[in-house]
């Protein structure tokens, strides 16, 4: 991975939501992340850990509080000029979690898919219909679906429309925010195989936000684990899933049920007690300290820094690493 080109580079990214009355919610806390050209980077964590906020900040649906984001070597932090924003929005697209609410119910499939390309004057008027049909067929739908409305489709089919809508702009980076968690088991595999096939065909880079660890282990190249707004561990899926170092990753992997009763009975569970802390007005110290089985005195007062492991791309933020 070290020779690969960096697609998006994030340094010191922080997002704070002011709640009023002196309260503030730190959704993203000093995020450093490089997304490499052509990879699938999995982003996992429990609900409320900030993974969707990170996705939305990278696509500039939220404006960052501090830190920098560079896309293809170009700084896109802060408020962008409208020309810059237009070129950026064509190159970075998002696939949303809920296929029922992300499509406009009053638009036909043709208008949904062509809306982006129309805004960017990508397609000539006479080729518009033909291009839409091409995209429908690429995502496994039929040309006859072109004049239908979203309510006429099943969840899996709507997600296919969502994928065609995002990819019709020929983006470089696609942020997939839990694209399969609203779908049935047998349909999930259909959508994942489609995403993987299109990634190879179009040379795409994916940031794959998910809470399903098994799916991330199976389809991603690298994975980042988030806890309360911070990335606590990052590395290839083999490193992170198979040999987790951070106690939170260990607990997450250990709680992930395996579809194999024999392996399930044989494994030793490392259950963590307690629940996720509140992200409002966070104090210094490791955020996982209150649930960590290996907690030390230092963890409650000093925020652990992210350390690189032995010259590899693997990074872990935990005080245990110093020993």
């Amino acid at each position, binding site marked *: 991975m070290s020779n690969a080109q960096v697609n998006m580079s994030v340094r010191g990214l922080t997002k704070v939501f002011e709640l009023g009355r002196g309260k503030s919610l730190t959704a993203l806390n000093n995020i450093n992340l490089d997304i490499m050209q052509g990879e699938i980077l999995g982003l996992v964590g*429990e609900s409320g850990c900030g993974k969707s906020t990170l996705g939305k900040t990278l696509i500039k649906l939220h404006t960052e509080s501090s830190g920098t984001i560079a896309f293809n070597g170009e700084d896109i932090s802060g408020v962008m000029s409208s020309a810059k924003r237009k070129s950026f929005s064509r190159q970075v697209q998002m696939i949303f979690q809920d296929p029922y609410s992300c499509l406009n119910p009053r638009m036909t499939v043709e208008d949904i898919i062509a809306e982006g390309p129309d805004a960017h004057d990508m397609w000539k008027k006479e080729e518009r219909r033909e291009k839409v049909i091409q995209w429908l067929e690429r995502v496994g739908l039929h040309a006859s679906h072109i004049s239908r409305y979203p309510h006429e489709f099943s969840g899996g089919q709507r997600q296919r429309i969502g994928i065609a809508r995002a990819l019709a702009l020929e983006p470089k980076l696609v942020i997939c925010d839990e694209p399969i968690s609203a779908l*049935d088991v*047998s349909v999930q*595999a259909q959508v994942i195989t489609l995403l993987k096939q299109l990634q190879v065909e179009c040379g795409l880079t994916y940031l794959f936000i998910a809470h399903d660890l098994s799916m991330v282990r*199976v*389809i991603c190249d690298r994975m980042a684990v988030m806890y309360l707004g911070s990335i606590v561990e990052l590395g290839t899926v083999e490193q992170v899933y198979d040999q987790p170092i951070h106690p939170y990753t260990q607990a997450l992997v250990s*709680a992930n049920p395996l*579809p194999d009763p024999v392996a*399930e009975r044989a494994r030793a569970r490392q*259950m963590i007690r307690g629940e996720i802390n509140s992200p409002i007005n966070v104090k210094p110290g490791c955020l996982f300290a209150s649930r960590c089985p290996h907690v030390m005195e230092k963890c409650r007062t000093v925020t652990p820094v992210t350390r690189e492991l032995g010259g590899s791309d693997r990074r872990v933020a935990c005080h245990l690493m110093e020993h």
Partner: protein
Amino acid sequence: METTNMKPVLSVKDLAVEFKTYGGVVQAVRGLSFDVFPKETLAIVGESGCGKSVTFQALMGLIPCPPGRISQGTAIMGGRDILKLRRKELEAFRGLEMSMIFQDPLTSLNPTMKLGKQIAEVIVKHRGMTEQAALAEALDLMKLVQIPEASSRINQYPHEFSGGMRQRVMIAIALACRPKVLIADEPTTALDVTIQGQILELLKKLQREIDMAVVLITHDLGVVASVADRVAVMYAGQIVETGGVDDIFARPAHPYTAGLKSAIPNPLNPGIKSLVAIPGTPPDLFSPPVGCGFAARCPYAMNVCDGFPPPIQDLEGENKSQERYSRCWLHHQATPQVVKRMFSKENSSMEGHV
């Protein structure tokens, strides 16, 4: 777990449920038979719309009628048919002998009522205690389901609790009268994975303490593998395969079970190639197919599958005392050996049955 010699605590025969809609009659459950034995965990697995939740809502008398209707079948529990209970009898039965926990604990709790009182309500109703005594019992139940600082939290409202803690309250309400059967309808689907682990562990522990049977309705094969003793796989309103948990995972006998198993990611066997999708979608239950419901999506479908409903074919499981069958023509004696061998070779991680 030995089951054949034991008497089932709940025995359902030939249950069918239908709903009248503007578009026609939906046959949600089509001839379902199964037994639940004391102390076991039976997992009901299937995708949305396969009828798994409707089945148990019917047993609990929760199907709105109209538009719903239980068109046939019996469900024997404690010597009587619970589908024929009158309103008063049903109210006495629900929560006392069989209770249910739901997927979304927030919408199942009363937002305007203190949680201690919600738990005590069941105890007052079924065990005839005074409210004072019931509240004391509710406190014990909150401790039983491991809610920290129970004595102060008993006076809180549902919105002050997290998702995992709300589900613990639901469990406390369901267990207040020590039921013989607990139906858990996707109890952990709305929860995070570390909280899911805590809740499943709690359910297992309480099951041992109270000696109750648990019916776990889920679509998550990982959860099934970690807690179930027996599994029934549902598709298009019918049970297509049943057996011990090891048999179902190591030697799936129905092509749908085998397909489901390879459609979910397995971290023990990573790589995109190990993920094989089942093509197509489940059939329309307004007019269910004459033959096998899965035939249109099945890679092993034969001519007979479209025209004739497959009979139940008994199979031999690893544990001889457990019921094991598949509703598939592949296992019929007239099916050519070649086809049988092809299926078992592709789908069995150990020696096949066929």
